[in-house]
């Protein structure tokens, strides 16, 4: 599916900001199942942008603005083709998770991280959930379903960085919370898991179908990749019942939100600011030549 994406963060400050430094991670990943045709970043007021791939392979755009400004608009436009992502077949037994290849090969995705720091109780809950299951795929699915069941999607109920154990107790959250809770539970049960930042082509983050309308406005999305022995990383979305595939546009992955947060920075200025983040997505009409080519 060919999708056009426009990410925008707009800051309004009550008084002029003297200087700001910012780091943006909004570029769709180029991988086996996803191709980026075009990606452009615009900053107003303008600043020189330095682009690079970070440790995780995510494209980063870094820029500073060193003159007084009352507002800042950071926008990124991408044109990307997404494909279906294959799902693993049940095969690998649970015991494979104990092998050195998994334990040592994916060590950082088995450790606690700032946003995935589970309590004993949460670990017990995870192990109970997959107790008696034989295969890796079953276990991954069981925990996914469990998280989807125990948390209700509720924008505004949490803040980014909230402790996963609190999220679990409150039973409410947004996609970042679903993802962090799932990661924490996977890892506590010995299943390597990583956090994925991206976009979801859906009018509602919890609804599973591509929208009818041509253009939708939503927010960035987050989901999870769990490791399945003999298969690899399997994308799975606890917020949304649809399999991770054409509708999901991956930006990048990391241990948790901190490794792939879309935009962070510092500025010299007033403490207050208004920030509006929006993601606009549309399906590109295929030209005749392209559609023939696809056939």
């Amino acid at each position: 599916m060919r999708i056009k994406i426009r990410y925008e963060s707009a800051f309004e400050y009550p008084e002029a900001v003297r200087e700001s430094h910012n780091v943006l991670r909004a570029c769709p990943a180029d991988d086996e199942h996803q191709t980026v045709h075009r990606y452009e970043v615009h900053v107003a007021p303008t600043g020189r942008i330095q682009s690079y791939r970070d440790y995780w392979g995510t494209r980063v755009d870094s820029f500073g603005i060193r003159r007084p400004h009352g507002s800042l608009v950071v926008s990124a436009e991408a044109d990307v083709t997404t494909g279906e992502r294959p799902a693993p077949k049940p095969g690998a037994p649970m015991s494979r998770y104990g092998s050195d290849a998994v334990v040592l090969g994916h060590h950082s995705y088995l450790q606690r991280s700032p946003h995935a720091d589970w309590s004993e109780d949460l670990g017990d809950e995870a192990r109970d959930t997959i107790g008696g299951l034989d295969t890796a795929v079953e276990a991954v699915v069981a925990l996914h379903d469990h998280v989807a069941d125990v948390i209700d999607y509720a924008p505004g109920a949490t803040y980014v960085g909230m402790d996963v154990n609190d999220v679990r107790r409150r039973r409410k959250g947004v996609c970042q919370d679903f993802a962090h809770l799932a990661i924490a539970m996977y890892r506590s049960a010995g299943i390597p898991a990583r956090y994925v930042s991206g976009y979801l082509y859906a009018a509602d983050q919890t609804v599973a179908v591509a929208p009818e309308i041509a253009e939708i406005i939503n927010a960035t999305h987050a989901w999870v990749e769990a490791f399945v022995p003999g298969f690899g990383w399997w994308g799975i979305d606890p917020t949304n019942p649809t399999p991770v595939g054409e509708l999901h546009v991956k930006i990048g992955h990391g241990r948790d939100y901190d490794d792939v947060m879309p935009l962070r920075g510092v500025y010299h200025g007033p403490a207050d600011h208004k920030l509006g983040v929006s993601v606009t997505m549309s399906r590109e009409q295929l030209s005749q030549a392209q559609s023939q080519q696809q056939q």
Partner: protein
Amino acid sequence: MLDSRAGIETQFSEVYGADGVYPHYKALMARLEVLGEDDLAHRSRLLESIFRSLGITFGLSGDEEGRERTWPMDLVPRIIPPGEWAHVEAGLVQRVRALNLFLDDLYVGEQAVLNDGIVPRWIVESAAGYMREAYGVPAPLGSRCVVAGIDIVRDGQGVYRVLEDNLRVPSGISYVLENRVAMTRVLPLAFEHHRVRPVNHYGSSLLAALRAISPTAAAGEPTIVVLTPGVANSAYFEHAFLARQMGVELVEGRDLIVDDHVVFMRTTRGLQRVDVIYRRLNDEFLDPVVFRSDSLLGVPGLVAAARAGNVSIANAIGNGAADDKGVYPFVPDLISFYLGEEAVLPNVTTYLPWEPDQRQVIMDRLDRLVFKPVAEAGGYGIVIGPTASDETLAATAAAIEADPRGFIAQEVVQLSTHPTAFDGRLSPRHIDLRPFVLSGEDIEVIPGGLTRVALPEGSLIVNSSQGGGSKDTWVLEGDAT
């Protein structure tokens, strides 16, 4: 069993061998004998008053009120003969060369060392000092450890062994230089009978190394600064000292700004471009844009400027990946992997509990070994087998069984002893050595280094913050043979 027991009890004396005083100590010991107790005591007091009046102090760790103590220096210098030093120097150069290559491999290379399984990937990935944020940040000449402080001890047989690498912001060099100056005032005649290699070129050597790593983008003479966390830092004295020795500006984070990925310092005549930063500030405080966002000590945008190749930062960001406790056992392997050489200076014998055969050795000798948690920093959680209670040892064994990757185990190292003056009388005390190694165009070792003394009788703790003292360290001129 018996052998290892004996090993613990043997202490190597730096001065006295089986046949009496070693030749390289004869002149010094004779001189001290001539002076006599009263004179020595008097000179020790003089030494203290010199440091007090110069205001050379250090902060005591754990002192809430930030009190400072006068730098304690012992009157009796430590002497290293040329042959021994040549051996140590060769080992240090080799070790630092390999560590530089290792760090470059991790941050801008192919990570061949991990792909080939020389160091287990998980060890590096769990090192607290491994900074993924610095991945891809270049270091000119691959000189990532511009200043390294390598802690060396001598075991019961007098073998020089590396105890620890300090590759982030090692401190102590100012005391090496001040100790020498004070020594020439207090015991001038002792120098007459020795040709002691000078140390006072450190400032110009460090400056040369920093110039060498200047980014190619720098036009003409590079501007170099020393970056300090500020006067409240316990090593501020040294930061100011080094800036003065090099004749460069001592700056704080708020003096620097980044504009379009170029670093400038704010002066009364406008912004002045900065090319090389010798920082004495820990990684996590360097840049709130990529590290701790609450740090006010750093410079927003600094890491991006370094990544763009517009400024060089010394030591490089993320060197903690190489001086980590978990990586230490593999340094001899790094030397053979990168240089195809055998390590000149051995490590202290270390056991890895995650290797089943080594775990067995550990379990058999719990009361003979030292246990260090891999993830903890600053000496936390260390268990010393010979002095630990049975309960502690049992708990340690259980912890190792439960999480073998959480610990390493080492043989207890008995530090060598050296005569040390107390009220004019000499008495043996344990010592170690921290030589300083500079990586610029080439690798240079400053002759000697900081010899630290554990002042309480029998103590093995040489840290100045915990009651340790220091000695002037003399490397003698002469043929290495």
